[in-house]
């Protein structure tokens, strides 16, 4: 136990429980330096984990949204990876093939169901807009878009109704003009973390009307074709017991100017890129963690060395060896806890508001995990910083408990 006098001469009692906190407050520069290190540690653990989790959620979301086993597109679109660019990176584009291809595919053995989709990109949707990707689907046959849009919009889409993707800055009830044709936004879809968030969805009647308007306005892709005879892609569901490989091979061999893309291949390609990014982020996190631990261990060792006389005096006034060790561990735990919380808050302020910029930079599906997972990761990151404190100061705590009080005090004279 220790007593000290305050400025107005009142005596207060300082117990070994209160001493660590007082030590930290009285040395703000030293405490701040150690706080920054702990904060950096939890920042890297939480921030890195969030990026990895978001990429994984994005991939899962894409897998769930595609719905089809195979997507048939025109040869040219497959060669230029236009479909992947639209679905994954949110690029704008459109391509068409003859509608009869959908009927031919539907008649193939092993095909359970097919549904045509229509793509169109607007030139501009008002005074202050960039092109918007418009995706049309046939409500009667669709099995890939409607199951997930039903989570956000349960009614039927009428002519000139639009559903806006999560990244489209338009509210329900707002009118959007494409190629001189006015459409009404009737709902906003939940975020999927894929390129589909940058698109608006409508039924086949509306998109055909929009394609006709685009043709009238002189669109080069549509000028020689009748919009009613075109489709952009055909979503294919394979019957149980049949392999998507054999169906896609049949389409690629027997159908001219059509390429079948297996969604599983698309997902595996992305999973490979994601694994590369995740490995790199994980390695970076580990490196930061080890580096912070080393720097903190050195810092604690230096600080304890500098405070030898302070500990010797505490020994003289009755503090036991274990009390000193406990005090050092308590100081480092307090620093770890505070720094850990600061680090997690800083990471939250960076990772979540800038998720759009991160998504654009990585070019991969990116979807923030749910609140429960975020909270769990935050708790683990703070825990990592709390553990790091005592872990790095343990050696110094043992050293201080073996202190020769007499020798230290004599050294000063």
């Amino acid at each position, binding site marked *: 136990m220790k007593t000290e006098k305050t400025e107005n001469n009142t005596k207060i009692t300082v117990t070994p429980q209160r001493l660590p906190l007082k030590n930290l407050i009285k040395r703000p520069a030293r405490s701040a330096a150690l706080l920054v290190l702990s904060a950096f540690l939890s920042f890297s653990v939480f921030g890195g984990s969030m990026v990895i989790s978001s990429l994984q959620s994005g991939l899962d979301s894409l897998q769930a949204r595609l719905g089809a086993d195979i997507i048939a597109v025109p040869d040219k679109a497959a060669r230029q990876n236009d479909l992947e660019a639209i679905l994954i990176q949110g690029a704008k584009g459109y391509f068409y093939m003859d509608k009869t291809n959908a009927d031919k595919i539907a008649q193939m053995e092993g095909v359970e169901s097919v549904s045509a989709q229509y793509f169109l990109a607007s030139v501009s949707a008002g*005074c202050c807009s960039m092109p918007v990707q418009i995706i049309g689907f046939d409500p009667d046959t669709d099995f890939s878009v409607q199951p997930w849009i039903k989570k956000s919009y349960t009614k039927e889409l009428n002519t000139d109704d639009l559903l806006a993707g999560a990244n489209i*800055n338009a509210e329900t009830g707002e009118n959007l003009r494409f190629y001189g044709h006015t459409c009404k936004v009737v709902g906003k879809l939940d975020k999927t973390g894929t390129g589909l968030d940058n698109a608006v969805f409508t039924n086949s009647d509306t998109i055909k009307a929009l394609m006709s308007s685009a043709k009238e306005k002189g669109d080069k892709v549509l000028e020689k074709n009748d919009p009613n005879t075109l489709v952009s892609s055909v979503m294919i569901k394979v019957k149980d017991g049949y392999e998507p490989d054999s169906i896609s091979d049949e389409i690629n061999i027997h159908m001219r100017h059509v390429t079948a893309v297996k969604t599983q291949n698309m997902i595996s390609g992305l999973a490979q890129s994601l694994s590369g990014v995740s490995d790199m982020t994980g390695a970076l996190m580990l490196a930061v963690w080890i580096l912070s631990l080393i720097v903190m261990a050195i810092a604690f060792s230096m600080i304890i060395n500098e405070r030898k006389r302070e500990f010797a005096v505490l020994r003289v006034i009755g503090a036991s060896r274990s009390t000193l060790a406990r005090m050092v561990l308590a100081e480092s735990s307090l620093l770890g806890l505070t720094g850990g919380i600061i680090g997690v808050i800083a990471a939250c302020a960076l990772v979540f508001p800038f998720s759009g910029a991160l998504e654009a930079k990585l070019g991969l599906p990116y979807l923030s995990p749910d609140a429960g997972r975020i909270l769990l990761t935050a708790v683990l990151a703070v825990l990592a910083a709390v553990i790091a404190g005592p872990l790095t100061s343990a050696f110094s705590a043992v050293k201080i408990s073996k202190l020769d009080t007499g020798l230290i005090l004599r050294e000063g004279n």
Partner: protein
Amino acid sequence: MEKNRISPTNIIMPLLAAVLALGTAFVFHACPAHDDGSFMSCHWAQQTVFGLGCVMLVISFAHLGANSPRMKMGISLALLPIEIFTALVPNIVIKLCMSNTMRCHSIMRPSVVVLSLLMLIVTCADIFLCRKKEDAKNEN
């Protein structure tokens, strides 16, 4: 004699205001102009935030120069609504571009919101410190 120490908030406030004003103009600015030279609405949101940042910078300097804790507290209180309003300018007061993937949504808006909220936290901390100083002064 009582030592007149400058609290860190006195320095952080003008620094953050300067980062907000200059950053919005030059670093995390809105989408560029169209090819024909016309601007999208996010440009006007950027100009508004720049103006508000400059106002905050001037007020923060006035705060730095003020001697009495009570005056500092008053200046900080005046800053609070400006900071809240600044955070609301992108997309709430002035609508930004159509796609959330565009620069004004992905870079400018989060930067302005994070900096305004940081400024708000620092201002609240300053009000707390000024109040403490004022109470200590009254006790003596």
